[in-house]
C-alpha cells in the first residue's frame, strides 16, 4: 500500500473515522485544532455527526450522551481544555461509558503556554478527573503510531467500558510524516459493534426490559474498577525495550521525547557506549516490570528524558527502579522542543559522571 504524508492532527481524525467513530464533540484550542477541523469536514461524509460545542463542558457531556447510545465517540483537547472536560471524564468513568479522549499537551507551569510540551503526564495517568478512576493511556511517538493507537483505543474503550486516552503533545499533532492507514470498518461492522452493546440506551421498544445506567456510586462498583485496574497492570502493560540487555545506561522517555531518546541510544552505541531505552507505549498501566527486571549489576544509571520541568514520569520510573540505580533527568519545557543534539549533550554529560 502506498504511503500518505499527513499531519498528526488530520491523521488522528481519519484514524478515528476508520475505527468507526461516528460522533465527535469538541471546542477549539491550540495545538489540536486540526483534529476537529478534519472531523467537521469528513465525519458527516461517513454518516457521523460533528458538533462544536459552546464549551468544553458541553462537548464532553455530548460525548457522554453519544456513548450512552452505543455510538463510538471521541473528543480531543489540550491541557487547560482537558482540565475543563475533566468533570465529564469522571462522569464517563462512573457510568462505565466507552469513549476516546485525545489529549494534546502544551507547556506549563499550570496554565502555561500554547507551545508543545509534556506537562500533563500526571494528570493523564493519575487523576484526569475527581474520584480516583483510571484510564488506559496510549503514548504514541510517531504519526503512524498515533494512527494505530487511536484505532486501537476504540476497541479498548469498548472492551473495558471505560474512557481511554491517547496522550500526545503539540509536536506530533502538528508535524507531518509518511503513514499507512488501516482499512476502515464497514458500515455493517460499525453497526454490529453498536448492536453488541446490550447496555446501551437506544430506545425502549414494547416488550424490552427497562435499562438503567446508575453512575455506579457503590462500594461494589469501586471494587470492580479496582479489579479492572489490577488486571490491566498484569495483562495490558506495553513497552518497547530497545538494546537493554547489556545496557549500562538506561534511557527512558515516552511520546515525542522517546523518538529522540532512541536516536540518542543509536548514536551512543556507535560510540561504543552501552545505552538502551525503555519506552512506555502505554503510560497507564505503567510498565514497572520493564524496570524491575533490569540487571542492576550492570546498570549504572537510569536517565529520564521529558519535555516538562520538573519531570513527571520520573515518579513512575522511581517505582520501577526502586532505588536500585540512580535516576537522572534531561529536560526541556514550554515549547523548547527536545532535539537530538540537546538530548545527546545532556545524556553524555551525565554518563561522564559514572
Amino acid at each position, binding site marked *: 500500500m502506498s504511503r500518505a*504524508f499527513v499531519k498528526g492532527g488530520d491523521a488522528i481524525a481519519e484514524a478515528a473515522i476508520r475505527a468507526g467513530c461516528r460522533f465527535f464533540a469538541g471546542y477549539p484550542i491550540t495545538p489540536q485544532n486540526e483534529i476537529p477541523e478534519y472531523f467537521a469536514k469528513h465525519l458527516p461524509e461517513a454518516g457521523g455527526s460533528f458538533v462544536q460545542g459552546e464549551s468544553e463542558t458541553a462537548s464532553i457531556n455530548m460525548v457522554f450522551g453519544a456513548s450512552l447510545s452505543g455510538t463510538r465517540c471521541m473528543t480531543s483537547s489540550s491541557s487547560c481544555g482537558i482540565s475543563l472536560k475533566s468533570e465529564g471524564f469522571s462522569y464517563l468513568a462512573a457510568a462505565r461509558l466507552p469513549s476516546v479522549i485525545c489529549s494534546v499537551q502544551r507547556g506549563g507551569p499550570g496554565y502555561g503556554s500554547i507551545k*508543545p510540551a509534556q506537562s500533563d503526564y500526571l494528570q493523564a495517568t493519575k487523576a484526569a478527573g475527581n474520584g480516583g478512576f483510571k484510564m488506559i493511556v496510549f503514548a504514541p511517538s510517531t504519526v503512524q503510531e498515533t494512527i494505530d493507537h487511536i484505532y486501537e483505543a476504540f476497541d479498548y474503550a469498548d472492551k473495558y467500558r471505560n474512557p481511554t486516552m491517547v496522550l500526545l503533545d503539540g509536536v506530533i499533532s502538528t*508535524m*507531518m510524516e509518511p503513514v499507512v492507514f488501516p482499512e476502515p470498518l464497514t458500515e455493517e461492522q460499525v453497526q454490529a459493534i453498536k448492536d453488541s452493546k446490550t447496555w446501551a440506551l437506544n430506545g425502549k421498544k414494547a416488550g424490552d426490559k427497562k435499562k438503567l445506567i446508575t453512575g455506579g456510586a457503590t462500594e461494589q462498583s469501586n471494587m470492580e474498577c479496582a479489579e479492572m485496574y489490577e488486571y490491566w497492570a498484569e495483562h495490558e502493560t506495553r513497552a518497547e525495550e530497545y538494546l537493554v540487555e547489556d545496557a549500562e545506561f538506561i534511557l527512558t522517555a515516552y511520546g515525542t521525547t522517546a523518538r529522540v531518546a532512541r536516536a540518542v541510544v543509536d548514536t551512543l552505541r556507535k560510540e561504543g557506549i552501552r545505552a538502551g531505552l525503555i519506552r512506555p507505549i502505554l503510560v497507564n498501566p505503567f510498565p514497572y516490570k520493564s524496570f524491575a527486571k533490569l540487571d542492576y549489576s550492570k546498570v549504572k544509571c537510569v536517565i529520564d528524558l521529558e519535555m516538562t520541568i520538573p519531570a513527571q514520569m520520573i515518579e513512575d520510573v522511581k517505582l520501577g527502579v526502586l532505588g536500585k540505580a540512580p535516576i537522572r533527568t534531561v529536560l526541556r519545557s514550554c515549547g523548547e*522542543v527536545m532535539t537530538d543534539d540537546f538530548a545527546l549533550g545532556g545524556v553524555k554529560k551525565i554518563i561522564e559522571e559514572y
Partner: protein
Amino acid sequence: MKRSLLIGGFGGQGVMVTGQLLCYCAAEETEDKQVTFFPSYGAEQRGGTANCYVIISDTAIGSPMVDYADELIVFNNPSLDKFEECVKPGGTIIINSSVVDKEPTRKDVKTVKIPAIEIALKLGSPKVQNLVMLGAYVGYTGLLDPEDVKRTAEKKLGGKRPEFIPLNNAAFDRGWEIGHAAAR
C-alpha cells in the same frame, strides 16, 4: 544519509508549501525514505516570520526539529537574522536575494543567492518565487529527482490552478539550474 533543512520567510511567501512539496515528494515518490515536516507553531505565524523544518533520512528520525540544519533557505531579512546561527558549520544558506538585502555574518557557511522574484516576474508571476527557491534547493543538494519534484508540485498545486503548471515548472527549472551550478 540524513539531511536537515530550515526554511524561514514571511507568511504568504510559500515557506510552508516549499517545505511540504519536498516532503510529499520524498514520502510519496520513494518507498523507504523517512521524512518529517515540522512547522513553527505560535503567534508569530500571523504577519511575522513563518518557518518550518524538513528532515529527509534513510533511517528513523528522532526529533523533527534540529538545532543546526545542513541547509537554511531564507525568504526575508528577519529570517536571516533569526536563523543564521542555526546552520551547521560548512552548511549552506540559500538566500532569496530579491528580498534579502544583507549579507550573512557567518564566515563558516556557504551562500547561494537566488533572485527569485526577478526570475519569477520574468516568467510571468511573482507568485512562483517559492518554486524558484525549491528548484534551487533540489538542484543544489541533488537530494531528489527534479522530475519527481515537479510531478509532486503538479499533483499538489495543479488541481486548484492548472494554468500555473507550466509556469511552476519553468520557475522550478530556472531555480534548479542556478542551484545545480552553485553546487559545482
